[in-house]
């Protein structure tokens, strides 16, 4: 039997460039750069925000030790998030709405000298 066509077509997925550096890449198969596609809206039909991206990364890219990436619904202390080469604090942090072709960098702060 034929299934009914959806009322509205799903929006085009967003292409996002991800980068892990400062040691973060070790959690991601020692790979610094990923280009991913993420749905433009959540299951509740709201726009995809940076908080959703973080959990998408945990569920889809992170192989083990999620506590080294996420702590209390955000990135763990000592990770700086950059959105298109700007500190995420200037962009709304977790509430930032992901745009197509965004580059999001997760950088672990270094302490050596």
């Amino acid at each position: 039997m034929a299934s009914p066509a959806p009322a509205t077509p799903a929006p085009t997925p967003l292409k996002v460039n991800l980068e892990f550096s400062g040691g973060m890449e070790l959690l991601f198969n020692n790979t610094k750069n990923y280009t991913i596609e993420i749905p433009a809206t959540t299951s509740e039909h709201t726009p995809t925000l940076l908080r959703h991206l973080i959990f998408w990364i945990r569920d889809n890219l992170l192989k083990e030790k999620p506590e080294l990436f996420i702590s209390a619904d955000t990135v763990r202390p000592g990770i700086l998030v950059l959105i298109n080469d700007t500190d995420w604090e200037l962009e709304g942090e977790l509430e930032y709405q992901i745009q197509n072709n965004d580059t999001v960098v997760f950088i672990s702060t270094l302490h050596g000298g």
Partner: protein
Amino acid sequence: MSAQSDVERLAAENAALQTRIQALTKENSRLKAPQTSPPLPDPSPLTAFTQVESLNNPEIARYSRQLLLPEVGVQGQLSLRNASVLVVGAGGLGSPCILYLAAMGVGKIGVIDHDTVEISNLQRQVIHSESRAGLSKARSARLAVHELNSDCHCIAYDLVFDYTVALSVAAEYDVVVDATDNVPTRYLVNDTCVLLGKPLVSASALKLDGQLTVYNYAGGPCYRCLFPVPPPPETVTNCSDGGVLGVVPGILGTLQALEVVKILTGVKAKEAPTLLLFSAFSSPTFRSIKIRGKQAHCAVCGTQPTITELQDYVAFCGSQPTDGPVHLNLLPAGDRITCADYHTLRQTGQPHLLVDVREPVQYDICRLPGSLHVPWRDFAQRVPDILAAREAVSHQPIYIICRLGNDSQEAVLHLRERGVVDAKDIVGGLLEWHQSVDPTFPAY
């Protein structure tokens, strides 16, 4: 080249060597003298640092290449001459930073470091030298500064930069450079600078990467604005574990000297706050990131600070103010074997399986004959390989070794969880093996 100028050149060289001999003789007798009291701030420069109204002729000649730059000029050079800069840490970052500050004509430089020069430092800590191995890094740096520029008023503090000295030492300087190597000291240096209202030029380096920011300056953030909560200690890697390419802290330390010059000449105040990222083997190598300004809710520099005096930074960060190796104690003594006992066991030919859990780069440096190599990061997946190898030696006990004896304990615990009860770790790892069993075995 005339004979006359040759004679002059040789005379100058001779004078410089005589000065050096005097300095080394003095240092030698100091080192040979019995240690009496704990080392205090180096009392030498006999004369106090004084500021001047104008540059003298030797200064004009010496700094002519900088005086020719409109961005520096006489006023800029005079600002350097009358400035004082405290460099916390005379390691990989501090080395080039101190040298360039002295070379460029900064009038007074304080160097604080409690560590001593080791040969394994010299790959990156270029202010020190083989002949000064064993000497305090602060004093070694001071000797190097005086060789380079005897006009520089350099003060060596052979001390740990901790909360007991931080405020009184830093109060004497205009700008502070964070060239340290650990988390608690970075928070301490930050809070000190905020409480004293000093600009802080901070950098860090590890492996092939570096980061640089100026904190607490011209409306910009402090370290706590960016990192209000310290990272979990287990996520922090230091240079002695992770390694570092010598030139990487060299580049970052040199950039710190540049930032100091920009602050002292007033250029920096016009710039928006940035974080400079350096990654030696990536493209682009440098990236400048726009960062947040001073945060109103910051615990130390905000509008209603909760931190109004220095804290217990070791407790706050849960880690020690050192980048030296950590020795964990995860297992009861009965689940461990000393290097000496393991040596006896090998000599008497007792059958067993030795598993080495170090990273491949480390395994390439040196290894004990007959070991099975299973890096700790692959360990969980490769337990079946270990059990198969153990059956090949008729179910004999398993001994696990690593570099320092930490991962080997984790590996034993992991095997316990998987029901393997007769595995032990070798206490202190291969470094201990070098120290107590076989001095010819490489130490790294």
